[in-house]
């Protein structure tokens, strides 16, 4: 933060209101998504968090119920388990997706075997979590999200994030936003969900070249499919696939990981 004008820029206002707490649920979700891919926004949020930190520290101290620590210990007491796996023990939290860099599961492996045509993109997804935690730069200061919120970076490889997807697996609300991708002239990018339980790739609609696109189509799938699915982007004729099937192999793909 080196230069300020007398008014807040839209992103400065967004960061300030995010930290103050006045944004609504959707706005908060969008900020949490954007901060993953936008270091400038992340820096603005950090500035307000640091400057308002004295207030959070000045909150009253109130002793929690005496049995709370026992509940926490029970939740993390998994013999020989990796620490990250303890997320699966929290009531209401997703099972099977952890903070580790290993998002692949049996469904995913089966999918890769079944769908050779999609192989390259599917393999990309294996590197997803690593890029989320390294390349895209998730901040340690920002473990902020509900355990039902997941994100995916759709990309060709770990160094080229193209879209950021945010999904609440409970409400199955999805929003997708381009980071660097713009569909070529006369083409549209279309989003698909792939999971062996639903057969062929299913369209989630055409993605706008800028801003957030939502995908109400996701609501027809169960939460476990939404959470385990592979999300992929294909290049289609303008307006989307004419026959409801992908015209070619995915150009970007990724799997969901728990939002940091």
């Amino acid at each position, binding site marked *: 933060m080196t230069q300020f004008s007398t008014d807040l820029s839209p992103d400065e206002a967004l960061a300030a209101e995010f930290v103050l*707490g006045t944004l609504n649920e959707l706005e908060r979700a969008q900020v949490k998504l954007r901060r993953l891919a936008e270091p400038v926004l992340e820096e603005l949020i950090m500035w307000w968090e640091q*400057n308002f*930190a*004295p207030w959070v*520290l*000045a*909150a009253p101290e109130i002793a929690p119920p005496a049995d709370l620590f026992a509940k926490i210990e029970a939740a993390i007491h998994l013999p020989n388990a990796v620490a990250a796996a303890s*997320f699966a023990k929290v009531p209401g939290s997703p099972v099977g997706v952890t903070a580790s860099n290993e998002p692949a599961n049996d469904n995913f492996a089966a999918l890769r075997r079944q769908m050779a045509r999609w192989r390259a993109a599917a393999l990309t997804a294996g590197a997803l979590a690593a890029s989320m935690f390294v390349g895209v730069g998730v901040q340690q200061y920002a473990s902020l*999200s*509900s355990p039902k919120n997941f994100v995916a970076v759709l990309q060709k490889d770990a160094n080229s994030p193209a879209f950021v997807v945010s999904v609440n697996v409970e409400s199955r609300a999805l929003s997708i936003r381009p980071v660097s991708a713009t569909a070529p002239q006369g083409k549209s990018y279309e989003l698909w969900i792939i999971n062996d339980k639903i057969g062929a790739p299913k369209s989630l609609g055409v993605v706008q070249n800028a801003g957030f696109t939502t995908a109400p189509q996701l609501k027809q799938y169960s939460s476990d499919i939404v959470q385990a699915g592979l999300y992929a982007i294909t290049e289609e004729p303008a307006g989307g696939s004419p026959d409801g099937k992908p015209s070619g192999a995915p150009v970007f793909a990724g799997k969901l990981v728990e939002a940091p």
Partner: protein
Amino acid sequence: MAKTAEDLSRLLGEIAQGDRQSFAAFYSATSSKLFGVCLSLLKRRDLAEEIVQEVYVKIWARASDFDSGRASPITWIATIARNRCLDELRKKSAVSLDELQETQEFAAEEINPLAGLEHGQDLAALMRCLNTLEEEKKQMILLAYYRGLSREALSQKFAKPVATIKTWLHRSLAQLRTCLTP
């Protein structure tokens, strides 16, 4: 908070190695703060308890993420907890609006001046900047920060359109930013 930032940082390092005794010590030093943060936002003990539990499970799993160069341990975890509580509050916006009737004015006395002696100077600077705002705007900022009131809830509270509240917020935040910028 009997432990210093250095103590808590050391405990986090030990927690990252899977040390349960350190985890217990960390919990006992910090849980009242986290529960206080969450309860003042959520107003429901059951919800506050649920979120605090979730945050400690997260701390156990991700203690190694802590970077002492960026924040003190207590700021780190209190910020995580506060953000989770805000998420929860926004999900239950209907509830928070219903409970608005019960929302008390926020008294500056609720801010514990002894909170984190290490941060006393920062708190004094922040309060000095807050006090440059008009009384109504000051109240709005504190209600948002400590009670988790959304723009809509503030609009009801102050009997002003949401657009006006948004303008008030942005002007007040701009004023705070100018004041807080060295």
